[in-house]
């Protein structure tokens, strides 16, 4: 039997913390513990993501649950000497609340986590994702065991009464989807997990796959049992190598344990899983394109009907859900639908993971009950806007979504309210923008993304998004035309109504919602040739005002020699030469350079 360790040091090995350096902490810590002869009493556990990626690499020391942030290899000595040996917390590595700047030693007391209700993410960061035993220790595979003791219809009924809806974007009721596939005629059926997460800034699926891969396998197996499928595919983008590695390991472990394969848990249920690596086309997140890609064809969507539930992978009835949806399933099965159904709003039950990015203090992943307000997410969990800047808008739902302005911050978030506000839940990516963000530029950014990711199959998306982007580009470049706004609106209507798949049908949303809430900014660009946020370089200029003391610093820092002036005399910027890099303004000690 494994010897009891008095303390566990959990080091986040998620992609976020890995890239900020967590990989080198583990050997440093191991070396230090060996030197101290403590390797037997302290256990090092590499976990998945904790969500607070901004603060990584994260290290948590149990049993006390002390939460250390931005830990570097040079900090290891102190953690061992002070904390693990002497039992004293290393103050300087503690997390500080952005609002109060107070340190918070305890994981559970950090505001970022306090308002969260972790359900799909419950194990992420708390177990070793490469150990099936740790997953089982955290109640893993009990949901599957329970499902196998019920009949498939009862399983579907349970999922239905939980109110779970697809977490990938559409929000279709999961139980109903399962039922369609179950009712479809056919001996051979498939379950597919859509792990082709592609919205800019969204990474909840990756975190789940990296931090708790067995949860997804269990969810898929339960689904397979419910719909009558004996084979499944996980379509995971190849840009997620760690997720794929963990999934492969997890599948191997589950097969060895008899939790996948033939006669699972002594029942007559067989279920095998394959991983298919996607090559990074955003459109392959669309279910029919995804299936085409698995079949080895060009990843392009096809018109529906027929729906995958009737004619999916290789023409067989197929149920597709995304990672987060499947991750909710095991707990719903194990504990019953009650808890999940008690969370959230009337139409949108349970919790949802949001990815916080942009101009926000705590970038990261937060799982919250549906119905929470945007204000709570951004200010209570996200810690507000950095550098004392003013909040301007939050973009939700990725390239298919829309921007919500300040006046909608108190909107209770669910599928319906967001759609009504011209945004959408999407996969739950939140991009927070402050006063320095230009909303035309934001629309352009998202349109550039969809335009780039359009598969090219249907005319409105292929040609229409290109023309929209061209119009937005010229507006940002100061060449907008009087009728550009109506032209954008007309194109948006046609692309929404006419495109073949959801990628095109939702592509104009970022433009429409910014036009709706920030029309004035568009007009300022077109009519006044001004970018109110000061973001569009073609529309801004730098001028030196009378505060100038003639110190010459700006002249020195200007990369294109656009500034002239004698020492102690007021300097001048040559607008024709200036490339608007802003270096002079940043350097000026007297605030003598204005942007406008």
């Amino acid at each position, binding site marked *: 039997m494994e010897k009891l360790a008095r303390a566990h040091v959990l080091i986040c090995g998620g992609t976020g913390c890995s890239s900020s350096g967590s990989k080198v902490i583990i050997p440093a810590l191991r070396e230090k513990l060996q030197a101290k002869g403590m390797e037997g009493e302290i256990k090092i556990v590499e976990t998945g993501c904790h969500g607070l990626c901004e603060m990584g690499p994260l290290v948590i020391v149990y049993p006390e649950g002390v939460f250390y942030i931005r830990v570097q290899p040079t900090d290891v000595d102190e953690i061992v000497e002070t904390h693990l040996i002497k039992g004293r917390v290393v103050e300087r590595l503690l997390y500080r609340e952005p609002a109060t700047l107070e340190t918070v030693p305890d994981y559970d007391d950090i505001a970022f986590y306090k308002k969260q209700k972790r359900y799909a993410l419950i194990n992420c960061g708390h177990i070793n994702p490469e150990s099936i035993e740790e997953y089982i220790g955290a109640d893993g595979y009990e949901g599957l065991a329970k499902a196998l003791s019920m009949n498939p219809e009862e399983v579907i009924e349970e999922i239905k009464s939980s109110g779970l809806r697809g977490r990938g974007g559409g929000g279709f009721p999961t139980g109903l989807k399962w039922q369609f596939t179950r009712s479809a005629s056919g001996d051979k059926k498939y379950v597919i997990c859509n792990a082709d997460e592609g919205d800019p800034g969204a990474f909840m699926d990756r975190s789940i796959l990296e931090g708790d891969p067995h949860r997804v396998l269990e969810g898929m197996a339960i689904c397979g049992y419910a719909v009558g499928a004996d084979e499944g595919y996980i379509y995971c983008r190849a840009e997620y190598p760690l997720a794929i590695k963990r999934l492969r390991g997890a599948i191997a472990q589950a097969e060895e344990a008899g939790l996948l394969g033939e006669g699972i848990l002594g029942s007559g249920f067989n279920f095998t899983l394959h991983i298919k690596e996607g090559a990074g*086309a955003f459109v392959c997140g669309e279910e029919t394109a995804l299936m085409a890609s698995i079949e080895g064809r*060009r990843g392009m969507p*096809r*018109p529906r*009907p027929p729906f995958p539930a009737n004619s999916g992978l290789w023409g067989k009835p197929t149920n597709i859900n995304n990672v987060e949806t499947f991750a909710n399933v095991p707990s719903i099965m194990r504990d019953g639908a009650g808890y999940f159904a008690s969370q959230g709003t009337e139409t949108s039950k349970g919790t949802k993971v949001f990815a916080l990015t942009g101009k926000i203090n705590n970038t990261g992943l937060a799982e919250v009950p549906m119905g929470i307000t945007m204000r709570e997410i951004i200010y209570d969990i996200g810690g507000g806007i950095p550098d004392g800047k003013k909040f301007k808008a939050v973009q939700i739902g990725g390239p298919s979504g829309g921007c919500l302005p300040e006046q909608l911050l108190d909107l209770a978030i669910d599928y319906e309210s967001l759609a009504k506000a011209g945004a959408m839940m999407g996969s739950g990516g939140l991009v927070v923008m402050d006063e320095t963000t230009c909303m035309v530029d934001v629309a352009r950014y998202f349109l550039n993304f969809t*335009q*780039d*990711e*359009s*598969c*090219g*199959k*249907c*005319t*409105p998306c*292929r*040609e*229409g*998004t*290109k*023309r929209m982007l*061209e119009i937005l580009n010229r507006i940002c470049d100061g060449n907008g035309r009087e009728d550009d706004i109506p*032209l954008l609106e*007309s*194109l948006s*209507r*046609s692309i*929404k*109504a*006419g*495109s*073949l798949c959801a990628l095109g*049908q939702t592509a104009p949303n970022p433009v429409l919602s910014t036009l709706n809430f920030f029309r004035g900014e568009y007009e300022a660009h077109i009519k006044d040739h001004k970018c109110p946020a000061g973001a569009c370089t073609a529309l801004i200029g730098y001028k030196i005002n009378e505060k100038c003391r003639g110190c010459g610093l700006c002249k020195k820092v200007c990369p294109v020699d656009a500034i002239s002036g004698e020492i102690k005399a007021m300097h001048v910027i040559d607008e024709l030469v200036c490339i608007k890099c802003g270096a002079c303004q940043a350097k000026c000690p007297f605030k003598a350079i204005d942007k406008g």
Partner: protein
Amino acid sequence: MSSVTDTKAKITIDGQEVTVPKSYTILQAARAAGINIPHLCYHPELAREGNCRVCLVEIEGGRSLAASCVYPVSDGMKVYTNTPIVRETRKTVVELMLANHPEDCLFCVKNRHCELQEIAADLGIRKVRFHGERRSAEIDDSNPSIVRDPEKCILCTRCVRACSERQGLDIYCIANRGFGSIVEPAFGLGLDKVACTYCGQCTTVCPTAALTERDDTQSVWDALADPDKYVVVQTAPSVRIGLGEEFGMKSGGIVTGKMVAVLRRMGFDKVFDTDFAADLTIMEEGHELLHRLKNGGVLPMMTSCSPGWVNFVETMHPEIIPHLSSAKSPQGMFGATVKTFFAERSGVNPAKIVSVAVMPCTAKKWEAKRPQLNDSGYRDVDIVITTREFARMIKQMGIDFMGLPEEEFDSPMGLSSGAGQIFGATGGVMEAALRTAYEVYTGKTLENIDFRGVRGLDGIKESSVDLGDGMILKVVVAHTLRNAEKLVQRILAGEADYHFIEIMACPGGCLGGGGMPYPTDTDIRRARIDAIYNADARMKYRKSHENPAIKELYETWMGKPLGERAHRLLHTHYTPIEDRLK
């Protein structure tokens, strides 16, 4: 539930109730209700893609508009084809296509035959609101038959589907994505570097001028204008049954006499008939079959008149080359005969003869350039134009084609039998060969000369003929290369116990060829087939070996079928494509 509601759906289109089969799409149902929904990527004979988004309609309760060409009807469905959002979206979609398309309609080869142009006109598009980047790509004219202009492509993928579904070849694919998408052969290679058979089926389905036949009409005008040249023309059996469609006749009208008349007015020195050479082909091919039967030659023997098919064999299945008849195609036999026999008879210097062929076929342009087809001592055939190019030449002349008198072909190479005429239809070469082979083999007169078992549009048609003495001749006919491939696979598996196989690369045979007038669909093919067999039935001679001109040719000049001169002039050989590409 009654059987009617099991198979039929009642739907409402623009307030009008229609009951249609449940297998119908909205587009089909609308047509039944007298509403023609505009469409571009949809083609009745190809898989439905729903990618152009022109045929959009509004379905009550639907989240967005639906492509009516792919959307199946269901009972109780309410459809609107003419609402403001439908009109606006259709118009915008076509406008978007035009914004990425050259504005050269006035001098485009497809002017007045372009489906995009027609739809833009129907939808009343008066300006394009978008001006930005356009696809820029080189024209591919690397081969003798087909010109590919990717800038005119609207990515409807009809060519991709036609090549794949009809011919099983997949020459075209979509490369890149989004706005950079382009339809092209793999790796952007030219059509001369891929396994294209030049059948031209892609050009028959392309709604714009992205895929067209190579235009060789100017070479013909140049030859006709050159006083030093003696210009002769041959016209293939299918040309006379499709040409009228270009001048407002309904499909199936035959314009042989007017066609001869117009060729004379163009200035051809002699107007001959490929049908004559078709009879010649039967003589040689029929005897070759009997020779193979008697002497244990390679069987089954396969026809070699269709250049798309020959190209397919050389490219994809060089291992079955020994099965191909060594007989040249009628065009090839005509070419070799006109510069030898005719030149000698008429005292024309063969060096001055320009031999022009009017063909239903784009691959014939390639065939004429085969290096081995120079047995006359010159290029056997100099210029090949398709039916479509021929029609354009007639229009350039400004002549009232339909008002022309009926005229006769010149002799001696203008007289033909019904057997030569039916070469244009799938099964026609087989039937013509059987008429002759039977009589040559048995020495008896064939009473019932209609071999109905090899006629019609079924993809693969098996039949047999009792030649007496226990000799049952087993034959099979296939059209399209997809069906041809099936037979090739049977041969390779040793499962083909046929004696004789006819293959034509195009659906319906030459009358559905890659160079025939637009549009071509099943109904049109059927009408053309009926015309061909009606013409055959009215012919004075119906068996190739009874054609007096053919008899005279053999008796006075050519010698015997398969004889020394015939062997030199009328037979050829085939080369695996690897060798040719080297």
